[in-house]
């Protein structure tokens, strides 16, 4: 794994963290998943231990509730740090939940994360957009160009 410090981590200002604890006390995950603690994540970034975080599965268990970002008195935003670390981890092809690859593939190829689903009523009847009287789902006008553009972006090294 590369040892260079990713550019996108420069703006984090992790060293200004007071370790006040507002973020873990607001976090719905800290109380439920062992090892997930936004305060500790910022402490590790301040110590330059990003590589350790990127290898850890806890990175993927943030709910994106944004309470940590809202309440941080130093405006550090553990949330944005987590997203940035996820992007680097994926860029470096480190282990991450398969769901991300599946969603990315679906969006790149079809414009949406999933195709319109057949859903059930409470009485177990099947309904789709048409039987609900809804207009057909939208998709990019020039799908070939859309897919090509997104693939191009994803192939660029954003580190």
């Amino acid at each position, binding site marked *: 794994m590369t040892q260079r410090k990713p550019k996108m981590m420069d703006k984090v200002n992790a060293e200004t963290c007071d370790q006040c604890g507002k973020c873990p006390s607001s976090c719905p995950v800290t109380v439920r998943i062992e090892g997930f603690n936004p305060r500790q994540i910022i402490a590790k970034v301040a110590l330059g231990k990003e590589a350790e975080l990127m290898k850890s599965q806890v990175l993927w268990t943030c709910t994106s509730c944004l309470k940590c970002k809202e309440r941080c008195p130093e405006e550090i935003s553990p949330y944005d740090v987590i997203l940035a670390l996820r992007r680097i981890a*994926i860029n470096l092809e480190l282990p991450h939940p398969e769901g991300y690859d599946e969603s990315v593939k679906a969006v790149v190829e079809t414009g949406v994360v999933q195709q319109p689903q057949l859903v059930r*009523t409470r009485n177990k009847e099947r309904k789709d957009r048409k039987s609900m009287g809804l207009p057909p789902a939208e998709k990019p*006008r020039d799908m070939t160009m859309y897919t090509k553009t997104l693939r191009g972006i994803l192939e660029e090294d954003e580190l």
Partner: protein
Amino acid sequence: MKYALYLGCTVQTEQYGYEASVRATMPRLDVELVGMVGVSCCGFPPFSSVNELAWLYSSARNIAIAEEMGLPLLTLCNGCHLSFTETIHKLGNSPELKVKVNEKLAGEGLRYDGKVKLVHIFELLHDEVGKDKITAALTNPLKGFRFAAQPGCHSIRPSRVGRPDNPENPKKLDELITWLGAEAGDYPEKNDCCGSSLAVSAGKVVLDIAGEKLKAVKRRGFDGLVTTCPFCFKVYDNKQRAIQAMGGKEIDMPVFYYTQLLGLAIGLKQEELGIDLNQSPVDELLIRIGGA
């Protein structure tokens, strides 16, 4: 009042009750919704966790379509609204990024300017349609019911980029509920997360997080939970049976999209509002609400 309607992936591909109730109620309040041709995913998730430029491109692409239409951009989903807000913020602060995104958009003949008027469903209903118009349209006021408002994280945080309501004391959805003749009680769990984003990595934790709020709402004696966020609805309504099975305790909490209750209160039929798709136990409450 005319708006470009951006549905987003979740509403357009599975949350048909939300879309149907929006399409049925808005014309009754003199709101004209214009479909957006050629739109795509806003980028949040998945690109926000994968590639920042792909995320900004995805949001800017849809904003560019609204700008081409020359209409305010209405979003139904909290996630899409925040994604567009953050994109406008980031591209507004970085001329280089804006140029880069526009280079990517040029292939499809699109151009992002960033001057679009972005409108959240709370802002449309609360600030633009307003109390007078909503109360004047009531034919079946929801008197005697008490609902818990679930605004959803991304409608209230992070305040530093500007959100539709207050981050620690949101009131708009509560007020919208009271304008239907119902009561909206404040409760300490209101601003808490539904957990739905964890579905991709820790499904059981989602049920635990969501269950905690549903149990609190039940304990506090509410008749139902009301939201406009498709992610919140997916968990509290669609997954309520699974939550109940995991916790072993009865919850039986009716969950509605606000626009479904609005529709009932202005005399629309359940079928027009897609209420047959709600999976939570709403039937008893619907009988009590009565109306059309």
